[in-house]
């Protein structure tokens, strides 16, 4: 007469044996798997000859005190076996279908949907963020005159800062009027049209046009392509997209700029994103600051993306330089303002971990199709 401990060992042996048998079935070629599974089922849970039934048959041979414990263990094994068999059966069944049914796994007839360009997606996201914050969104002429692109922005012809932005010039000046909203001199402060000589190097040119024609307060973002004489490499293209914000009014402060950029960064990169200001220099702002966001790939602990600084530079900003206000006919004693400029490509590269900026301009469908409509 076997003892309980001997039978427990046998249960454990059976458990291991089943696992081996199951693995053998899994390794059977798909076409023969259903048959193998049937055989396994009969061998284990067959009512008369199954190994589970064999175990159960030993129950009466045990002393009454041990029967309950033994029964429970055999039942547990049975459940494991049945569950494993049921899973395999479901898998096998899924590969077949009843004759009257369609094959649900055939591809559906999906009408083709286009894919949004990632720069277009970021641009729209930025537009939405600032629309929500009460800004108007403007575009402007891409071919500009010297006054709006440089002079009015405190970048005079011999200013070293002009070296910072290598400009693309037209062969011959154009005497066309810029797009309608900016053509008419609707304000006494607007200047007579000048010959258009260059491709705008920043959307700040647009801000000058706006201020010349509208009195403060101002609360706008200008978005669109800008052009610089930069050779193509991993992080530079001679055309890229910029989003520039401008807020002018009584009592606008650098702290307002920080709050605004923090809100933008959180909207773009997720809640908890932090920003920091590093003092810098731009001819059209004073004070000026470069703005970093806490690295989105390492959360600030340091990684290759942020060159182990924990921060990623995303934009330049500052308080509008009084000379700019003077150029557009605002009184710097009356109003202050902040401005910032951000590269759309830069944000897209960070957001989607794009390592080569040139991908945005190749229009390779294998790239574009990774973005949804």
């Amino acid at each position, binding site marked *: 007469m076997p003892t309980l401990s001997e039978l427990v060992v046998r249960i454990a042996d059976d458990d291991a044996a089943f696992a081996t048998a199951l693995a053998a079935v899994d390794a059977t070629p798909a076409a023969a798997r259903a048959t193998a599974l049937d055989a396994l089922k009969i061998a284990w849970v067959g009512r008369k000859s199954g190994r589970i039934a064999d175990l159960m048959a030993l129950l009466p041979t045990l002393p009454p005190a041990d029967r309950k414990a033994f029964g429970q263990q055999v039942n547990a094994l049975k459940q494991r076996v049945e569950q494993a068999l049921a899973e395999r059966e479901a898998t096998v069944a899924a590969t077949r279908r009843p004759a009257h049914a369609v094959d649900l796994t055939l591809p559906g007839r999906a009408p083709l949907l*286009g894919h949004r360009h990632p720069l277009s997606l970021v641009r729209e996201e930025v537009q939405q963020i600032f629309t929500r914050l009460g800004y108007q969104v403007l575009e402007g002429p891409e071919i500009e005159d010297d006054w709006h692109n440089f002079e009015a922005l405190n970048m005079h012809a011999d200013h070293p800062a002009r070296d910072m932005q290598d400009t693309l010039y037209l062969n011959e000046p*154009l005497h066309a009027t810029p797009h309608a909203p900016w053509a008419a001199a609707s304000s006494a402060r607007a200047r007579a049209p000048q010959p258009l000589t260059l*491709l705008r190097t920043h959307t700040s040119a647009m801000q000058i046009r706006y201020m010349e024609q509208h009195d403060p307060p101002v609360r706008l973002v200008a978005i669109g392509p800008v052009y610089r004489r930069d050779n193509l490499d991993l992080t530079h293209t001679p055309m890229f997209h910029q989003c520039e914000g401008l807020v002018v009014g009584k009592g606008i*402060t650098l*702290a307002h700029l920080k709050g605004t950029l923090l809100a933008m960064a959180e909207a773009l990169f997720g809640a908890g994103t932090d920003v*920091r200001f*590093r003092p810098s220099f731009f001819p059209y702002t004073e004070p000026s600051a470069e703005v970093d966001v806490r690295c989105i790939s390492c959360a600030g602990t340091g990684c290759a993306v942020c060159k182990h600084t924990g921060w990623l530079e995303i934009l330049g900003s500052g308080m509008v*330089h*009084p000379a700019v206000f003077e150029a557009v006919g605002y009184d710097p004693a009356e109003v202050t303002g902040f401005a910032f400029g951000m590269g759309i490509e830069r944000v897209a590269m960070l957001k989607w971990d794009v390592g080569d900026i040139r991908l945005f301009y190749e229009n*390779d469908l294998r790239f574009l199709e990774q973005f949804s409509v």
Partner: protein
Amino acid sequence: MKVLYSWLRDYVSVPDGPAELGRRLSLRGLALEGLEPVAAGPAPDDAVPVGDDAVIDFDVTANRPDCLSVVGIAREVAAVYGLPLRMPGPEAPGHLRTARMAGADAASFTVTLDAPDLCPRFAGAAAGVRVAPSPAWMQHRLQALGVRPISNVVDVTNYVMLELGQPMHAFDHARLAGDAIVVRQARPGETLVTLDGKTRTLAPPQLVVADRDRAAAIGGVMGGLDSEVKDTTSRIVLEAAWWRPRSIRATSKALGLKTEASTRFERGADPTGQARAIARALALLEILGAGAADGPLVDAVAIPHVAPAIALTHAHVEGLLGMPVPVEAVERILHALGFSADATGPGAWRVTVPGWRPDVTRPEDLIEEVGRHHGFEHLPATFPPVLQAPPPSDPRIARDAVARRVMLALGFSEAISFAFIEAAAAEPFAAGAAPIALANPLSETFAVMRPSVLPGVVDAVSHNRRHGRRDVRVFEIATAFAAAGERRSLAAAWTGAAGGDHWSGGRRDVDFFDIAGAVEQIGRAYGVAATLAPDVPPYLVAGRAAAVAVDGATVGVCGLLDPAVAERRGIPRADAADVFVLELALDALATAAPPGATRVTPLPRFPAVVRDLALLVDDTLSAQSLRDTIRKAGGDSLISVELFDRFDPKKGDGKVSLAFRLTFQAPDRTLLDDEVQHSLVRIHQVAVAEHGAVRR
């Protein structure tokens, strides 16, 4: 600007190591560009070099010429750490007597400033020298900062430039003719062989430092080869001058000659630092045993520098920054940076700007100094008040979004291309006009502004074809450029399959009616009826392309791209790639759209009667004219005429069957069968009469 960490410590006892120092300065305006650990080298005090040193590279912004010197950076460091700055001596050595222009009797040479506006100050001194290599410590420091050691005399001038930011030059006294130095504009065509051995041809208003006979140096840019200090030189004239930045900038640009000196002068050297630089250089010559002054300092000053004074208030500081900054902090920061702030009332100062800070001219500039050294990290994050509803955004944004939605729904993916393209790529689309050309394009690939947005999408097709993609549908919404101005355009290209490939079959390649259908849908989205006319530009295939018009005005084109144009953009004819394109002027389309909201038509109260009518007509008859005939003949109750089938029953007989679905409906009653029948008969009669149609 590279600085050697140990050199910096000559002037300020910074407690942090190079890395932490770099990090802290980055948050105060001197961005850390690079950090290169180096072994400690020989020091001026002959101490045995121990431990590590580092070359710290700071990105100095264009407005901070003062930080193109070790002392300038040390001043920032001292301000950041609240430590004293030890200036290198001597401040004004006793043995140097200043000889003003008028009474330079005791000096062995005179200085005349002939271009006082561009060079208002020129300090000089003569010294007897023994030319030899400079000591190891000086060579080590120069090399660490990227300057090649030459000889003790030249090294001293370079050392002072790096230390104080005042570029200097040493002339071989023996090679200067006469004893009168003149700073004047170059004569037209005047030549000078510069230190680099190149012959420079000069022109006014470029400045030269000249002796009695000829130019000896290009002022503020580079010295002349002939008067350079050589091993045999026994007597030198040291120069430390101040040059007007825009003059140096223009000269440097015109000559294509950028030097350590020109870089500093064009950004603005300290207009008060010349005598000090001469004194420091003479002191170093003595320290090195390389020589000594043998005459007084000649300090020619044509226009004395007047230190600007700026009125600053505490309220302005806090008002612009939007954060509290204690009065004491304002004073401490300004003082540490070398400004003197004299209180003119409670929370009000008259701030005098030191010569090395030409960038500071307004209160806002001072507020930046205070703000950055107090720390931008203390800025609270607040919001600007919204005082009025924002004016509307550029209408083009919402308008372009309509076209974008339609194109995406039609299966086109969005492309973005460069606005400048190859001249050859622009040519077919320029309608005979010369495209707008760039004066300084990066390359021939980016030579002209696109006259149409089509070249970009055609190139996108080409790119994808070359990368193994047969079916391509792309669109771009962007600006096209012409002499008349910029216009916003929607362009699209479609090649390969008309629909998605599906296992159930039905694959078909795109044809004219697919692209025409896209145009129709866009028109519908803008609420306009687009009609097609046969006149097309030469880059399309006549007969399989159309001009798109709204209310009689052309707004664009659609149809088959000329295979020759496609081939030139890398889409080979051989792979039978029909490329269908469309381009629509979105400005024109939007102008044509009816203003205001569209009104909903109430649903009809009485039932409609639908009848099909098939007519056999000549296959050259346009569907449009038959449809117009039916409409006219159908009367008021005919509310819709839809062509639903076109069929060629006997191929080759020139006859085609067009089937129309006609819907009759009256707003006020149920139509009687007789009425509808009567209309159909009349339609048939008119069609027979006008087009010889036969009812099938």
